[in-house]
């Protein structure tokens, strides 16, 4: 994993509130190019919200999110440009149901980046092949299993050549036998040096894929470290008890 020193993503002192609830306050985070960051924490601690803020799907009330040197602000004119650099895959299946697999993955590069159709198609076929779904290219999402849909969703995000990939519990809605096929795709992306922020409840997988772990609780990053430190020598009581629950 070639991790150079330049942070591709910087989260500076951000606060996120919904009316009367504060999800997080003064949160800071830096992600280096090529780094895989795994975020864990109890349900409702704000993991999804954090990823959504990074993709400007949610406005933040304070602070700054800087991607590749540029600030991400929802509603600003450049926000779509920046979004192209951030790929996201959600927990629920979100493929476009009226399009085939191939149409799903080709839409954004053609319409947003105005790339040549033939070239996009070739790239799409190669990526689908890589995730083992070439034979499904003309099927509709309803004809796919959950695991297959998530792999297509990953390909769809990759087709935009994002600088950062955000994965929000992408295996949480899957039947157990389909989890592995999706996680293997993510592991192979990590090996090729993709920058990723991953929210997951699969601790084994987290350990295998992460360069760095962070634990969020009560609106703060409570603990962070290498997977080794994080799982073997948790420094805080909160993390130990969280991990104990997860192992159980």
């Amino acid at each position, binding site marked *: 994993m070639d991790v150079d020193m330049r942070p591709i993503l910087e989260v500076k002192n951000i606060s996120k509130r919904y009316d009367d609830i504060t999800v997080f306050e003064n949160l800071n985070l830096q992600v280096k190019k090529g780094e895989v960051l795994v975020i864990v924490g109890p349900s409702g601690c704000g993991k999804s919200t954090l990823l959504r803020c990074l*993709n400007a*799907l949610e406005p933040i009330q304070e602070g700054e999110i800087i991607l590749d040197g540029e600030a991400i602000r929802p509603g600003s004119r450049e926000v*779509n*440009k920046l*979004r*192209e650099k*951030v*790929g*996201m895959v*959600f927990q*629920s299946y*979100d493929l*476009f*149901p*009226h399009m085939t697999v191939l149409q799903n993955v080709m*839409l*954004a590069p053609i*319409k*947003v*980046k105005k790339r040549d159709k033939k070239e996009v198609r070739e790239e799409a076929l190669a990526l689908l092949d890589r995730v083992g779904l070439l034979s499904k290219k003309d099927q*509709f*999402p*309803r004809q796919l299993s959950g695991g297959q849909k998530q792999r297509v*969703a990953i390909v*769809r*995000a990759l087709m*935009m050549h994002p600088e950062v990939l955000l994965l929000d519990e992408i295996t949480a809605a899957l039947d157990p036998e389909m989890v592995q096929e999706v996680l293997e795709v993510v592991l192979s992306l990590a090996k090729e040096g993709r920058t990723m922020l991953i929210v997951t409840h699969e601790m084994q997988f987290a350990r295998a894929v992460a360069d760095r772990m962070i634990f969020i609780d009560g609106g703060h990053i409570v603990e962070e470290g290498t997977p080794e430190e994080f799982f073997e020598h948790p420094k805080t009581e909160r993390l130990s008890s969280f991990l104990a629950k997860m192992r159980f």
Partner: protein
Amino acid sequence: MGFEVLLKGNNALRLLMGLGVALRISLISAVISIALGTVFGVLMTLKKPAITAFFRIYLETVRIMPQMVLLFIVYFGATKARGINLTAETAALIVFSFWGSAEMADLVRGALQGIPKIQYESSTSLGLSTMQTDRYVIGPQIIRRMIPLSINLITRMIKTTSLVMMIGIVEVLKVGQQIIEANRKVSPNAAFGIFLVIFLLYFAACWPISLLAKYLERKWEN
């Protein structure tokens, strides 16, 4: 059985022309309803209190009022009471469009609100603009949901046109009655035959449409 009266004079042709009147009224109303209803449906999703209140009253009115009452109000109300010169067919078109637009608006609203939020979000997070999202992601899904429903609305309109004879429009059912009346002496059984033919005419008009709706529904289900 009374089928022989069909062959008398131009009775068969008159029945077909009567069906033509019914189809013309329903198709014109359907086109108006689909256009207006789509606009109304989009307006209803905007969540502006005044607009919402207006459409609630409109929809409830349409739901509560029998179409026949609406026909009487518009036709007799306008022509007799206010002296506005409306032909019966114009009155019918107004009432059917008023009714159809409400139904259509509710269908469009339902379809729009039935699109999961994640569809908008995954499209935006791929970098598509709001306009591109509507055009390539949301619009096509709405149209796929709407087409079978609109087609059903058309068949319901065709059926309901039988009411317009109450304001003097000579459509297929009225023609049938006229033929039966005229032949009361010579073929007292004509009623059965004529109504059977009318049934078959309605069936021939509606069945293919409803098959098409079912076919599209199956093709696009997700």
